[in-house]
C-alpha cells in the first residue's frame, strides 16, 4: 500500500498526515462490521462458554457458581464416555472408505480422456445435497418393505424376507457409514484432485524417462507430494465425523437404546431436553479439546517439508 499512499501524498494541495490518518481510519471502518459479527456471534459465546461451564446453569431460572464441579462430573459420566467412544468408532470406520474411494475417484478424474469432466461432476453431485435431504432419501431406500436396498439384496439372493436396517445398532451404523461415504467421497476426491493437479508434470516426465512405471510414479511422486493435501482432507474428515449430528439425529434418533448417540447429539439433548446448559457446555469444551489434540496430531504426523 505504501506506494499508492506515497504517490497520493506527493500530490500538491494535500496534507500528508491527515490523508494517512484518514486512510487508516477508512481501512479500520471497512473491516469493522465483519469484525463486530465475529465478536458478537463467535468470541462472546466462546467466552461465555468458559463462564457457563463453571456454573450450574439451567436453561431457565437462576444460575449458581459451582467451580469445576461440571468437569469432575464429566470424568465419571458413563453416558459421555459411551457417546465419545461411539463417535470415535464412527470416525475410525467412516474415514478409511471415504479416503480409499476418494483417492480412486481422484485418480480416475485426473486422467486425460474425453468426458472426464462430466464424470468428475457426477461423482461430486451428492456432496452438494444437504444431510437433511440425503437422510430422508436414504430413509426411503432403507425401508424394509418398499426400499430398493432390500429389493436389490433379495434380487441377488443375499437376503430373504426383509431387513430393518435401523432397528439394530450395527446395521444402522453400517448403513449410515454407507450413506456418508456416498455423500462425501466426492468432496475428498475434489481436494485430492486439486492437490494432484498442483504437482508439476515434468516430474512425471522425468520419472518416465528414467524408466519408472505407473506404480513407481504413484508411489514415489504422487503419494509423497500429496501429503499436505492428505493432511488437510484427513483433518476435515475426522473433525466432521466427530461433529456428526444430522445423520444420527434423523436416521436413528440416537437409538436403538441410545447406542448410536453421537457426542454432539448428547450435548444437544443435555442442553435442550434436560435443560442443563452448564453441563452441556462443559461437554462441548471436552469435545473441543479432543478435536484440537487430534488435529494437531494429524498435522504433526503428516507434516511436510517437501519442496518442489
Amino acid at each position, binding site marked *: 500500500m505504501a506506494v499508492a499512499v506515497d504517490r497520493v501524498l506527493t*500530490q500538491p494541495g494535500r496534507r500528508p498526515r491527515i490523508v494517512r490518518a484518514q486512510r487508516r481510519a477508512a481501512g479500520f471502518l471497512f473491516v469493522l462490521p465483519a469484525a463486530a*459479527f465475529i465478536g458478537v456471534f463467535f468470541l462472546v459465546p466462546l467466552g461465555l462458554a468458559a463462564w457457563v461451564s463453571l456454573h450450574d446453569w439451567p436453561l431457565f431460572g437462576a444460575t449458581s457458581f459451582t467451580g469445576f464441579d461440571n468437569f469432575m462430573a464429566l470424568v465419571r459420566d458413563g453416558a459421555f464416555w459411551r457417546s465419545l467412544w461411539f463417535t470415535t468408532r464412527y470416525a475410525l470406520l467412516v474415514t478409511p472408505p471415504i479416503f480409499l474411494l476418494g483417492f480412486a475417484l481422484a485418480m480416475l478424474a485426473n486422467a486425460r480422456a474425453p468426458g472426464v469432466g462430466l464424470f468428475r461432476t457426477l461423482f461430486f453431485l451428492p456432496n452438494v445435497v444437504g444431510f437433511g435431504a440425503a437422510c430422508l432419501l436414504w430413509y*426411503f431406500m432403507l425401508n424394509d418393505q418398499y426400499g430398493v436396498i432390500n429389493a436389490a439384496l433379495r434380487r441377488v439372493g443375499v437376503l430373504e424376507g426383509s431387513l430393518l436396517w435401523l432397528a439394530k445398532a450395527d446395521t444402522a451404523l453400517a448403513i449410515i457409514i454407507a450413506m456418508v461415504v456416498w455423500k462425501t467421497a466426492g468432496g475428498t476426491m*475434489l481436494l485430492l484432485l486439486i492437490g494432484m493437479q498442483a504437482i508439476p508434470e515434468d516430474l512425471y*516426465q522425468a520419472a518416465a524417462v528414467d524408466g519408472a512405471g505407473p506404480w513407481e510414479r504413484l508411489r514415489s511422486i504422487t503419494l509423497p507430494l500429496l501429503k499436505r493435501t492428505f493432511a488437510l482432507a484427513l483433518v476435515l474428515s475426522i473433525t466432521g465425523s466427530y461433529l456428526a449430528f444430522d445423520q444420527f439425529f*434423523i436416521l436413528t434418533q440416537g437409538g436403538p437404546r441410545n447406542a448410536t448417540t453421537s457426542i454432539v447429539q448428547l450435548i444437544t439433548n443435555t442442553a435442550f431436553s434436560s435443560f442443563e446448559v452448564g453441563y452441556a457446555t462443559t461437554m462441548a469444551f471436552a469435545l*473441543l479439546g479432543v478435536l484440537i489434540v487430534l488435529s494437531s496430531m494429524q498435522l504433526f504426523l503428516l507434516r511436510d517439508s517437501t519442496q518442489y
Partner: protein
Amino acid sequence: MASAAGTIGAPPRRGRWSPGLIAFYAACVTLAAVFLFPLAWTFVTSLKPTAEIVATPPSWLPRRLTLEHYRGLDEVGQGIVRYISNSVVTVLYTIVGTLILSTLAGYGFARFGFWGKNALFVMMLAPLMIPFQAIMIPLFLVLRELNLNNSLLGLSMIYITAQLPFGTFVMRNAFASVPREIEEAALLDGCGQIRLLFQMMLPLVIPGIVTIGLFAFFASWNELYAALIYLTDEEKYTLPLLLAAARSNPGLFGGTNWGGLQASVAITMLPCLLLFVALQRYYVSGLSSGAVK
C-alpha cells in the same frame, strides 16, 4: 489437467479403444451410476403414483407420471410454500450479509494499513479453528439476550458469521490481485473511497463474489443443526428442518406418505444440483483457494 502420466490405467493420449481405455470408462460409468442412482431414485419416486411407489418389486421406471405428490405438499404442515419461503428468506439474508461484510472486510485487509490489522485478521479466521457446534449453546443464550432467537434473521446472523472467515479470506485475495494502478489513478482523480470500491473495484472481483455467494447458499440452504436449536415455531421451519421433523413426526405429512416425502426431498435438492452444475467452476476455485493455503 495435469499428469495423466501419473494415473494408473490411464488412457493413452490419442483415443483408440484399447483395453485400458475401456476399463477406464467402465469404472467411470459404474461409479457415476452408484453416485447418481439415489438422487435419480428420489425424483423418479416423487413422480410415481402411490400404487407404484409401494409395489414389490419396485417399478424401476414409472409407468405413469404424476404431480399429485407435489400438489399434496400444500397440505403438509403450514403448506410447503411457507417452508420454501422460510428457506429462501434465510438464504437471501445470509448471502446478502456475507457478501457485504466480506467485501468490505476483504477490501480493508487487502488495501489499507491500520493499527492491529494482523491481529484482526487472525481474529476473523478464528472460527476456522473452533467449530460452531462447540459454542452453539452459549450462542443460544446470546441470541435470546438480543431477542433474535426463533427468528430467521437471527439464524442467518449465525450463518453469516460462519461464512465470514472464508468470505473475508477469498475477498482479500481477490482485491489483492487487482493491479494497484487502477486505484491510484482513481484516487488521484479525487474519486472517493466508497465510490472507488463500488464502481471500479467491484466489477473486477466478481468471480470472488460468486464463489462466496455460492458457498453461502449451500451452507444456509442445507443447514440443520443450528436451525433445529434456534427455531422452535413450526411456521418458521426451513426445508431441512421440515425433513427432519417428517422423520420423527410422520403425522406432519399425513401419515406414511413416501411420495410427498420424496417430493419435498426433491424440492430441497434441486436448487443445489442446478446451481452446482451451472457454477461449479466458482465452487472449485473457492475450494482450491482454501486448500492450497
